[in-house]
């Protein structure tokens, strides 16, 4: 996790807000550093994490996680982390009997089905254990990323329904959190992606949007992060609703600074 980002979001691993949906989106840049941040953050916060990783392999996230101070291997072994490696298990769908449900069952269906098997996988992974004492702080679902589901033939409404059910179960019933990454296609006319992005935006409590700089690439400033808080339970709170910062990604850290205040420029 990046301590500076924690400061901006006003959270620490000891005080985790519960019952929230966080939307990560990126436009013209790579927002995966946010996924790594939240993965290591929630593991350090002693939460049970279900990570639906459709983009990269387990070892990729593990290597980055080690730089950020968490070991995914250890977390998986002790049961804190349930990892669905999309790239590997997608192949399993075709080599097992059709009666057994698989979380990525939609790959096998001709018409764009729904994501109910994936939801049931998440439900099974995060449901509170029957033993009286809670081993972990709260359940967390992390998805990297949802846009690829559109590319795999699932409709935007089906993805929204999946997130809806995750929200109803993980956020509302079990007081956990959901974090999902969606790419913004930007100028490319992608209606399905726009519906997904805006639909999730309306459901979210917190939106983190990583954008490339309008002026192009820069060695010292890699992009801009916009933070929007929504649906706060106290409507009269005079809280800053939207913040914008620029950032630079380093090997083990991301530094944030106000616009135009990069150390390289000052």
């Amino acid at each position, binding site marked *: 996790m990046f301590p500076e980002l924690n400061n901006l979001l006003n959270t620490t691993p000891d005080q985790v807000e519960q019952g929230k949906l966080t939307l990560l*989106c990126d*436009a013209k840049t790579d927002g995966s550093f946010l996924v790594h941040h939240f993965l290591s953050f929630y593991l350090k916060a002693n939460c049970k994490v279900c990570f639906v990783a459709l983009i990269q392999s387990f070892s990729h996230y593990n290597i980055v996680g080690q730089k950020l101070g968490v070991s995914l291997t250890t977390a998986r072994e002790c049961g804190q982390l349930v990892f669905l490696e999309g790239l590997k298990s997608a192949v399993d769908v075709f080599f097992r009997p059709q009666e057994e449900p698989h979380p990525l069952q939609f790959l096998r269906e001709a018409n764009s089905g*729904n994501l*109910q098997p994936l*939801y*049931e996988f998440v439900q099974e992974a995060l449901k509170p254990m029957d033993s009286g004492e809670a081993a972990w702080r709260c359940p967390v679902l992390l998805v990297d990323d949802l846009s690829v589901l559109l590319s795999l033939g699932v409709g935007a*409404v089906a993805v*929204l*329904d999946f997130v*809806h*059910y995750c929200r*109803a179960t993980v956020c*509302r019933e079990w007081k956990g959190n959901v974090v999902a990454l969606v790419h*913004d296609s*930007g100028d490319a006319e992608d209606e399905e992606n*726009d*519906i997904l*992005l*805006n*639909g999730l*935006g*309306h*459901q979210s409590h917190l*939106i983190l*949007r990583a954008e490339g700089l309008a002026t192009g690439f820069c060695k010292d400033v890699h992009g801009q992060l*916009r933070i*929007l808080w*929504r*649906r706060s*339970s106290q*409507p*009269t709170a005079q809280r800053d*609703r*939207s913040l914008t910062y620029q950032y630079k990604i380093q090997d083990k850290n991301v530094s944030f600074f106000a616009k135009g205040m990069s150390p390289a420029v000052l």
Partner: protein
Amino acid sequence: MPSDGCSNSLAVKAAAGAQFLGPNRGPRLSKNPRAPLTEVPTTTSAHPGSPCGSASAKDSVEWEGRSLLKALIKKSALCGEQVHILGCEVSEEEFREGFDSNINSRLVYHDLFRDPLNWSKTGEALPGGPLEALRALCRRTDPGPVTIALDSLSWLLLHLPCTTLCQTLHTLSRQDSCHGDSSPGEQVHVLGLLHEELHGPGPLGALSSLAQTEVTLSGALGQASAHILYRRPQQRPSHQMDPTTHLTFNLRLSKKEREAKDSLTLPFQFSSEKQQALLCPGLGQPTSHIFYEPDAYDDLDQEDPDDDLDV
């Protein structure tokens, strides 16, 4: 003065900031000081005496509209109406937050949030899914003025065909005309929350035409603002005016003119008489001739007509 052709519009045009998620996709809006949305101006309520009052609140990701919907619901509840809420997007506890017990007792929450598509198969879901739940609201028979709130119309529009939804909404708002003995005091108010960025202009236009009042939320520079569009109910005419009266030209035919018109054969109409005339050229019909006068340079050789070509 408002320039969009509708009276009672309170918009004062001003520049709007960029929307949060991507380029500008919403309408340009006005500037009002941001006040906590607990009091609602009376212009948004239905005009008394109208057969139905339906209002839609359009919001965006950056400027959310649920608090406005809740404010309108609170207003209805304080007037003594019962409020039925079809809740698709938030849980019942979250929706009831912020209302005191007096208001909460008048709210009936039909929960489509927990299990709208019956995935859990525990039997707790509303039977028949979203459409049946919406139709059940049409069929409810408790007396007295009632407000029906749809949270949200966008969710319904994504899960039901647009035509079905519009027809059901039309039935919902015309409900009091179905009851034979409805008194003028019994009105059905329908409130809907719509997320503008999720739909194309077609469905948005269709839903707009059903709403009598539209409140569009936006803002600039950190201040929220609302654009209110109120359509005056149309006076339906008792008889249709005949557009062919009082013309400066004659549209009628006299009997002789009609006969001449009917007996006219059109030049390019292929009738059997014409077919016969073409197939058998009769006497007196001039056949065509070609008259050819060779000049000095023409070399007419019937054996080889192309002899003069240099090939």
